[in-house]
């Protein structure tokens, strides 16, 4: 799509001195919401798996674990709900010109998302408050819609992000958005690799973080069935997801190479268009090339196009004003890929040990690595989103609308930014406090309370 001037619904350019604050607020809110959402994606399936174990074996430790996890799930869901609400408000409060012009193009996705949230909120309440009040079968079934809503919820919001990165389904005539085709807009973008990659990331983040808690308990010598099940279930989900993520990441990279060549050039710091491009590990980008990095000949062409001689478009193909901040994007990308590779190795180690020896690895270092894997996957997650979102800059809708055109004209954004940051800090502190309190309670309490 050609980048025409977008006069837009308001017929006038926004003039916002605090654009950076608006962007930072948006980024901050995402950085709070998206880790929580990982639990919305992956935790229900893990909880149901453990409940299923209980239903099959009648072993009280499994019930205690499922019940404990479901409480954590409810808490994180509640916090996910409020942070998600903030994001919905921010779309209007920070980016009104974006909403005014494109609300009708992608709004459908959010309308469907609303239905999905309803279903999730309804069944999560029935599930968590229904322990010991519904028949075991009905209770288990009440969990199924939560798993489904975790998929549809992320599907719908990612259609929007996929569309922003590869906008389709509308025309621009005389600087106005017309002919919106909502369905083709939603499913024509970068949705499919983003959805798969994010979904797998959800399992990695939730799985490794939860497994880390039980790995710690393991090292402290708590190895009864309850702690063992907590470790094995969470770790198995994450370990199976980790190697898959590398393959999905490769798919994402090739799609970006094809559809957003400037973004890809920023991932790798490719200044000039070149054939048989090298990949650099570490180093920094300056004056059109990567300095002080470790070059790996032709790897970039192989990765991006699966062909060692392929041409990779450089940043010089577009004017400087259309390029994203290269070092931010490149470091974020390198962080994600580096962590992703390590976690994939960890996952393979676990799965191979399990398959060949039918037991858990014995080295304390394995358990220490599992404890580190949770925070690391969280870093990879945020880094991945930084790659995608900052890599798209200066566009909010790729090559159609600039972020500076989307922003609000309201004043005093930094006041809101400070307030919001303080509130988020309190929120995080409160959640940490709550989870610690829950963890201290002995597991037997879950079954006795019934």
């Amino acid at each position, binding site marked *: 799509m050609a980048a025409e001037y977008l006069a837009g619904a308001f017929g006038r350019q926004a003039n916002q001195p605090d654009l950076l604050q608006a962007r930072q607020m948006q980024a901050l809110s995402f950085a709070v919401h998206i880790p929580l959402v990982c639990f919305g994606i992956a935790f229900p399936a893990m909880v149901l798996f453990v409940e299923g174990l209980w239903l099959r074996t009648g072993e009280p430790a499994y019930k205690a674990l499922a019940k404990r996890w479901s409480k954590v799930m409810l808490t994180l869901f509640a916090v996910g709900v409020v942070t998600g609400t903030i994001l919905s408000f921010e779309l209007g409060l920070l980016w009104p010109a974006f909403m005014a012009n494109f609300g009708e193009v992608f709004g459908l996705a959010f309308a469907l998302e609303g239905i999905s949230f309803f279903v999730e*909120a309804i069944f999560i309440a029935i599930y968590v408050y229904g322990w010991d009040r519904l028949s075991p079968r009905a209770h288990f079934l009440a969990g199924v819609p939560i798993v489904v809503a975790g998929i549809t919820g992320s599907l719908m919001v990612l259609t929007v992000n996929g569309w922003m990165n590869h906008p389709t389904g509308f025309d621009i005539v005389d600087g106005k958005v017309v002919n919106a085709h909502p369905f083709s807009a939603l499913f024509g973008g970068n949705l499919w690799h983003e959805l798969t990659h994010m979904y797998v990331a959800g399992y990695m983040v939730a799985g490794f973080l939860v497994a880390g808690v039980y790995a710690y308990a393991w090292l402290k010598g708590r190895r009864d069935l309850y702690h063992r099940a907590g470790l094995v279930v969470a770790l198995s989900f994450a370990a199976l997801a980790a190697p898959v993520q590398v393959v999905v990441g490769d798919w994402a990279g090739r799609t970006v190479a094809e559809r957003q060549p400037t973004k890809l050039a920023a991932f790798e710091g490719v200044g000039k268009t070149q054939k048989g491009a090298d990949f650099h590990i570490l180093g920094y980008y300056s004056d059109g090339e990567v300095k002080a990095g470790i070059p790996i000949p032709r790897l970039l062409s192989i990765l991006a196009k699966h062909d060692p001689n392929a041409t990779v478009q450089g940043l010089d193909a577009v004017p400087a004003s259309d390029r994203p901040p290269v070092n931010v994007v490149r470091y974020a990308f390198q962080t994600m890929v580096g962590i992703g590779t390590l976690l994939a190795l960890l996952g393979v180690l676990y799965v191979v040990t399990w398959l060949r020896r039918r037991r858990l690895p014995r080295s304390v270092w394995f358990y220490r690595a599992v404890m580190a894997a949770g925070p690391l996957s969280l870093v990879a997650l945020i880094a991945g989103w930084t790659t995608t979102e900052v890599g798209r800059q200066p566009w909010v809708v790729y090559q159609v609308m600039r972020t500076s055109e989307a922003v609000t004209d309201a004043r005093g954004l930094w006041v809101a930014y400070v307030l919001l940051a303080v509130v988020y800090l309190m929120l995080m502190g409160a959640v940490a406090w709550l989870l610690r309190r829950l963890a201290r309670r002995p597991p037997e309490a879950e079954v006795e309370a019934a």
Partner: protein
Amino acid sequence: MSLADVCIALMVAGLIAYTVLGGADFGAGFWDLTAGGAKRGARVRGMVERSMSPVWEANHVWLIFVLVVFWTAFPTAFASVASTLYVPLGLAALGIIFRGTAFALRGQAATINEARTLGAAFALSSVITPFCFGAAVGGIASGRVPVGNAAGDPFSSWLNPTSIVIGALAVLTGAYLAAVYMAGDARRAGLPDLERAFRDRALGAGVVTGALAIGALFVVRDDARSLYDGLTSGTGLALVIASAVCGAATLALVWGERFELARVSAAGAVTCIIVGWAVAQRPYLLPGHLTLEQAAASHRVLEAMLISLGVGFVILVPSLALLYRLVLQGRLDKDYE
């Protein structure tokens, strides 16, 4: 009826659901704030928590629903409202964070002092949030939101007579609804002292809310004449009267301790007044600036959204019915710790 009418009807329905259900949650927070010292208030607080725990997330989603239909069906109007009224909407959003978190955490608090601190955050935000939403509605209804990116005044758009009375009404209405509902819940749970406590509160709040509603009409007459004209003629007038009748009936029913019927008539009073507002400002979406038809997204978009929502409702309605049935049967009662 055009598709834009259907969309606005959906938004109004969502707003009614949010006020009647979510508003009562906020009202419960109001009673929490005024429940008094740790000992005396403990039982009232316990009741608040018990009634709200399983439903507040689902109630909250109505707000999201209204937002998404608004920005899809009327994108320019949504952007104008959000960018002009960013102060009250931003405050309401912060209030929602506090309310949700404090509520989620409170069930876990071990000591009375912890519970009170968290409760205070929860309760305070239960007043600020509905006030800000009401004030924003007042800004729209009194024609203070022009079309454009932050084109209206950031303060007088919501700190004006109409906004302030509507904001106060929103807080009181929630408190009133909550007291009526909780009196019924207390009876179901077999707690006669709490039943009496909430009955008294419902009567008090009902009288005050009614008086303020009448006063509000005079304020609106001076401050937003065209809204007043809409509310005092034709269908608008009929709805205002219906609302008043429902309100009076609710008082009588509460007096007579018929709480289940009072639940219905209280919700009816709220429904009539919200529909009355929508009717009074027809054909405008942003009074004086933008009509509904001008604001509407293209036909294809509205059609796609309405069909998708229709399909969604096939799943949603039975699910909601299941949840409320389980709650009203008391099957999800007793907080989970």
